[in-house]
């Protein structure tokens, strides 16, 4: 009886290992990951149909603001260049808007602060599963993009950041992200420079980060320096549209 039980136990463990390693192997096969990529398109299309371009992410009251808002990813870019910006109070920080536009812009932090602003208390959803509610103030991106005048073939907005993700000086490995034009023009998509009524802290992306409230956290880059409008994003990094996307995360971050 014990023998049979041992045998059954081993058979069960063995077949579960086989099944699991089968799934693990499948996860490395291009044809299978290609299929999963098609599912991503299906999710994106379905969510676009239901959400449309203008529906707003829920907004909350001051009482809902998290006592501790977790800072994730880069907590300090740590480069000499960035340290100099911190020391000077980001006086010389500029955000440029270029690429497929008629009038490239170069904005100082003062210039961004003088623009009409939007304040929103929203929920930040991390891909890991946790959420934090915070208040953000910033310049809506849509009028800035409109001022730059996107060319007809501009489809994506790519954000280049100051935080290196690997060895310093490797331009391919600074954090970057991309949104489609619809999400970039959404009324709650802002270049945020204040958080919970204070200057944006370094851990949360000082002096300016993106808030795109219908997206997960990794789609909302911090330390934004350059914004490029493009017809696609295959020329950046590994060509998947973002730092985490290059590592296998889906480009569509609304789910």
């Amino acid at each position, binding site marked *: 009886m014990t023998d049979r039980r041992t045998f059954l136990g081993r058979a069960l*463990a063995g077949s*579960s*290992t086989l099944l*699991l*390693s089968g*799934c*693990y192997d499948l*996860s490395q096969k291009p044809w299978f*990951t290609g*299929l*999963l990529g098609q*599912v*991503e398109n*299906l*999710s994106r299309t379905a*969510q676009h149909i*239901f*959400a*449309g371009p203008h*529906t*707003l*992410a*829920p907004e*909350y009251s001051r009482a*809902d603001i*998290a006592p*501790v808002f*977790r800072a994730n990813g880069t907590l300090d870019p740590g480069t000499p260049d960035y340290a100099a910006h911190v020391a000077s109070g980001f006086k010389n920080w500029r955000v440029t808007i270029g690429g497929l536009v008629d009038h490239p812009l170069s904005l100082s932090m003062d210039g961004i602060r003088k623009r009409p602003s939007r304040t929103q208390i929203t*929920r930040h*959803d*991390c*891909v*890991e*599963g*946790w*959420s*934090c*509610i915070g208040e953000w103030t910033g310049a809506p991106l849509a009028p800035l993009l409109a001022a730059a005048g996107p060319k007809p073939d501009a489809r994506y907005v790519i954000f280049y950041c100051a935080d290196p993700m690997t060895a310093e000086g490797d331009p391919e490995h600074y954090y970057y992200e991309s949104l489609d034009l619809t999400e970039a023009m959404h009324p709650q998509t802002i270049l945020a420079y204040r958080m919970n009524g204070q200057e944006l802290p370094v851990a949360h992306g000082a002096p300016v980060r993106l808030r795109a*409230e*219908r*997206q*997960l956290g990794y789609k909302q880059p911090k330390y934004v320096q350059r914004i490029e409008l493009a017809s696609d994003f295959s020329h950046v990094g590994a060509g998947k549209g973002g730092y*985490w996307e290059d*590592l*296998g*995360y*889906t480009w569509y971050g*609304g*789910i």
Partner: protein
Amino acid sequence: MTVETTEPTPHLPDRLRAALGLTPVAPHYFFYRHRAWVRIAHWLNALCLAILLMSGLGIFNAHPALYWGNGSNFDHPILSLTATADDSGAVTHGWTWIFEKPHDTTGFLGASRQDGEMTARGFPVWATLPGPQWLAMARQWHFAFAWILAINGVLFLIYALVSGHIRRDLAPTGRELGHLPREIVDHIRLKFPHGEAARRYNALQKLAYCFVLFILGPLIVLTGLTMSPTMDAAFPFLPWIFGGRQSARTIHFLCAFSFLAFFVIHIAMVVLSGTWNNLRSMITGWYAIRTERRREPERPIKEDMA
């Protein structure tokens, strides 16, 4: 009628024979119990639920804690799985915190062996898909099979409504509900309906299937959707009805384990009420029904001898 003196198989109690799937002792006929579309939907569900549970645990492991409300109150989780290490940094213990009370679950929850080494991870490697921690891939598996489950579920519901499957086979009648206490006692004593009574689902079965179909299924889909920030913009009532995104995540987790409990009981019932007969009927559609012994003139030898 000839009388044989030697039995072809060792004498076993009827119920054990049935459980082992040996040929029924009593005469029987085959009854077409499950139509093809029910069988296809059933096995598709089984596959989806297994993959969804395991990839879901893989996703959960990225942040193995549950909260109530919209945000994560990191200091006061409802449930969390953590690990502790010794001075050299080697993981030694896994802990399951329920309402902030720790329970040592080393080897299973919080910390378990991966490639022979004690590793900090919520659920163990054999329970997650893909095995080693890989959030991006676990999410892709989860969403792919969530689509299949949802489409299969909606098609099943529509067809079951239109074809009368729900009215005829799944909705318990008032009279059946009156027998419920009796059936619960019978199930506890592992006495299952047989003969003509086995042609129909009993009230407990009907209630269990209706609970999964109309409550658990929709709840796990809706709480899943609530975790998507874009869906919350499209349907702001979603986080509202569940008491927040983190509450929805907690309910989603509880639903997943309710499905697991349903699965365990379902398998137990399948085994106890005749493994092969049940399996055959869900694969080929045909279920063997034992005919009443009293009305059967040609009875098998063994019954005569008894």
